């Protein structure tokens, strides 16, 4: 469960990136974060995975105040969260397999475990045939799938995706969103930041709408699973 209590974030004086946000996201929920550019979607995401800390307020994940986590212990939080970026953040000089293996390697998993989990994950995102390709040699849609695979291979509790379809056409975007739905069906909390209204209309999930750093709407469009 993710809880925000009166969270504000300021980078510049008198200018709020987020202003007094209070919200709660249940375990296993699928949530869209929407809003125009600069509304605070990415900031809210960064606060969840503690790349940044709030100027005011508290953020709890599974009842743990993440502001209090020491930098040296941050890896414990990050292992609970999978993150997908708009620009994919893949290592271009490594293969699909090597990119997806990173979260497992840093955990010190055995080679056999890594092999098995990557194969399962690649099957889920439909990329097993591209396993040995360099990520620089595959299409944008495939790169995004690799990024998703890397985010979920470590069995996170939460999956954050910041504009995951921003660089993709509508057809591919829908495919990607379906993959997120599948992931969510396995009990993983999914939070997707997007400003694509068309996608929001196709996938009727809970919608948190941000406007100039303020939570303007919280619309429950589907019963939580």
């Amino acid at each position, binding site marked *: 469960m993710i809880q925000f209590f009166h969270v504000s*974030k*300021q*980078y*510049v*004086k008198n200018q709020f990136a987020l202003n007094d946000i209070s919200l709660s996201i249940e375990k296993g929920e699928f949530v869209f974060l929407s809003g125009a550019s600069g509304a605070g979607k990415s900031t809210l995401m960064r606060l969840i*995975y*503690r*790349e*940044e*800390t709030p*100027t005011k307020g508290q953020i709890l994940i599974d009842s743990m105040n993440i502001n209090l986590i020491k*930098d*040296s212990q*941050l*890896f*414990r*939080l*990050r*292992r609970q969260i999978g*993150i997908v970026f708009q620009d994919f*953040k893949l*290592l271009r000089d490594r293969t699909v397999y090597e990119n997806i293996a*990173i*979260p497992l*390697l*840093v*955990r*010190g998993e055995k080679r056999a475990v890594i092999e098995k989990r990557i194969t399962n994950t690649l099957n889920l995102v439909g990329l097993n045939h591209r396993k040995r390709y360099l990520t620089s040699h595959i299409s944008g849609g495939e790169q995004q799938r690799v990024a998703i695979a*890397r985010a979920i291979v*470590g069995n996170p509790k939460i999956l954050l995706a910041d504009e995951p379809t921003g660089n993709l056409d509508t057809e591919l975007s829908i495919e990607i969103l379906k993959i997120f739905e599948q992931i969510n069906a396995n009990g993983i909390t999914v939070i997707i930041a997007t400003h694509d209204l068309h996608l929001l209309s196709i996938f009727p999930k809970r919608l948190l709408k941000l406007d100039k750093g303020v939570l303007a709407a919280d619309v429950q469009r589907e019963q939580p699973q």
Partner: protein
Amino acid sequence: MKFFGHAFKSAVENILRNKTINLLCFGIIGFTLLVLGLFQIISFNLNQYVSRLSRQISAIFYFQEKSTQSERQIILELVQQSLLVQKALFISENEAYTRFGREFPDLKYILSEFDQSPFPASIEVQFREHNQSMVQIESFLKDMKKYPSIESIQLNTDWAKRIENLKQLISSVGFFISITLLFISIFVIFNVIKLNILYRQDEIIIFQLVGATNFYIRLPFLLEGLLLGMLGGLLADIFLAFSLKLFSLYGGYLFDVLRGIINLRRIPMAIFRNLILVGSTIGFFSALFSLKRFISQSRRVQNP
């Protein structure tokens, strides 16, 4: 162990990836440590030389003509009890007279003009071998000179003092130059690691976001610094051995002059080992400083 394997592989890849800059860094560390090694060798040899000379240091205590036998005995015992002294031999007036005649037979006629020995009684002192510092010997002689029964003490120490001063000067200059060069090395390694961190910034961010520990992220860079320093030390060793070989082969006259002072065959292996150790240490700590400065897990923005 798997972490170490990954980190070591990553460190080697980093070094090979930026060959030019790492080669430059490697050369600078090698040169720095070579200078350090040369000063260590000079200092070591001068120490050995002073030590060898110290073995030959002797002094002669001349007694006042009117000093009594008991006073002389007291002085002899005092000298013999000193930890600095290896051997002390009392030479009476008559023994000195006889010795002169024996050692300078051509001048024996001079002695015939004297009814009794013209030489004062004395104690000949040989100092122990391990006394490498003249300061202790001088202090001892100064104390002894306070006894009224001693007329004078003869000690030719100018040469030893000069060597001692030279050694101290060389050590000081060597220390200063070495420290300066070591700081340059630290600066160079610090910046090489910084460049590698910046070069691999994307990778580091991804590692942080997927939950890598600080240790996992930093270890390759630490090993890289360590390897650069260690290889720099090794390079310095090779340069040093090569320089000494060249010096002994082509040093010519200069080498003949210095042969008595510099013994290339007796250079301790510790000097070579120390260069690798110093290189590794500065490599490791420079990398550590660089990591502390340029890698952090989160951006904690202060309240505006």
